[in-house]
């Protein structure tokens, strides 16, 4: 299958994420997720990272399932202590819904790996988004792994000072993570300042009107996606809100 235009990728991610966020019926959410995985795989995106990324969310999902079971007990109680329901069928279902929602959004985002940052910027420009915003959003995405690495290094630095993060009480842990945020935020602001200076030194925004040598052209398949995706999304949402 031909790689879609970056504008189609944006539309696809927006449609799928909208369905993922609004739908609360488990089987329908699962269908949306399956459809997203199939479509994105057919387009050529690799989903090997999906499982790895979702593993990180597993604890959040279990936490949500537990909270839902305790505070909004619905369905049969599966585990209880006295009168307090620890795990209910409803709670588990809500946890599963959260997991499916996250999985759908992550799977739809995998489509962006099919384009370069230049392609995405051009896509945004041709959607009439000012170049400055388009460029900044692309830069922000590029810096995410850097921040993640910085955060990991700072956690390592804390451990190198003799703090066994895995073994300290939760309260201490929270205190440590809060203090780690300070250098990471400082680093982010500092990097942003240096980056803006570097960009201006390379004459960024020197001319009010910017032209592009490289432009995107929509192909027949792109028009099909652009016609089908919003209609499909609207149909699924109508089915969910009116018929279900």
């Amino acid at each position, binding site marked *: 299958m031909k790689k879609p235009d970056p504008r189609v990728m944006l539309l696809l991610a927006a449609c799928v994420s909208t369905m993922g966020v609004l739908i609360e019926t488990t089987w329908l959410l699962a269908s949306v997720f399956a459809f997203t995985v199939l479509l994105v795989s057919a387009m050529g995106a690799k989903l090997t990272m999906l499982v790895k990324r979702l593993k990180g969310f597993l604890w959040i999902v279990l936490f949500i399932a537990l909270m839902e079971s305790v505070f909004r007990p619905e369905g049969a109680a599966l585990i209880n202590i006295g009168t307090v329901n620890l795990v209910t069928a409803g709670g588990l279902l809500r946890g599963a819904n959260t997991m499916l929602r996250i999985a759908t959004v992550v799977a739809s985002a995998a489509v962006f790996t099919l384009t370069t940052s230049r392609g995405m910027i051009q896509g945004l420009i041709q959607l009439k988004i000012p170049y400055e915003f388009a460029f900044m959003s692309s830069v922000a995405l590029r810096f995410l792994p850097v921040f993640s690495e910085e955060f990991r290094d700072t956690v390592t*630095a804390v*451990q*190198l000072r*003799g*703090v066994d993060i895995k073994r300290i009480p939760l309260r201490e842990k929270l205190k440590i993570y809060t203090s780690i945020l300070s250098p990471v935020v400082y680093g982010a602001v500092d990097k942003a300042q240096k980056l803006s200076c570097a960009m201006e030194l390379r004459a960024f925004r020197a001319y009010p009107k910017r032209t592009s040598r490289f432009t995107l052209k929509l192909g027949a398949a792109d028009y099909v996606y652009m016609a089908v995706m919003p209609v499909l999304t609207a149909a699924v949402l109508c089915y969910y809100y009116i018929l279900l």
Partner: protein
Amino acid sequence: MRKAISLERVSFGYKKTAFHIDDLSLDFYCGETAVLTGRNGSGKTTLSKLMIGILKPDKGDIFIDGSNIKKHSLAQNAKSAGYLFQNPERQLFCNTVLEEIIFSLRQTGLDEPAARIRAEELLKQFSMEDKAASYPLKLSGGEKQRLALLTVLAMEPKYYILDEPSSGIDRDNKQILTDMLNRLKAAGAGLCIITHDEELIESLADRKISMEKGRVVRDEKA
């Protein structure tokens, strides 16, 4: 001399690059200053991170003070061997210079008042007492480097692994740093210093180890 850190048939590779360390055995001793040199990308920093347990070897064993580091957490290893990052900014995370040192001292078992007194002493000893209330990340490059080293020093490890401690600092600050390292050496601490700095090598090295493409190509007395 007693072995401080031993690497026994250690192999390590990064997933996304061709770089690898293969079957490397090397010993570092207490009271000795070993200088690790080599071109960029030769594996010096990787080796130093393996030595302390920041990176885990694919094969082989690493011992600190005779104990396999696999059995201990990074925090426990750090109490025996201090590590200084190549970029000192990555090492600083408290709100003031004084708090940075107090944080290290508290991990050695000192209570808050005792740690504060000791931290003030250390700052005075290394001419940084006027910076006690400053935000660490706003210090100059040389000051950040000195502070990062002080946070390691405060924990009083038996061995120090320092990744390019003199990079990006001026002559005056380098002199202060060299004095600090000489003091550690005189106190009998073992040092492993990764550096390209000829002056630092001249003034401190007991042993020179050169690396190339993940291999030790030269290991000789200075």
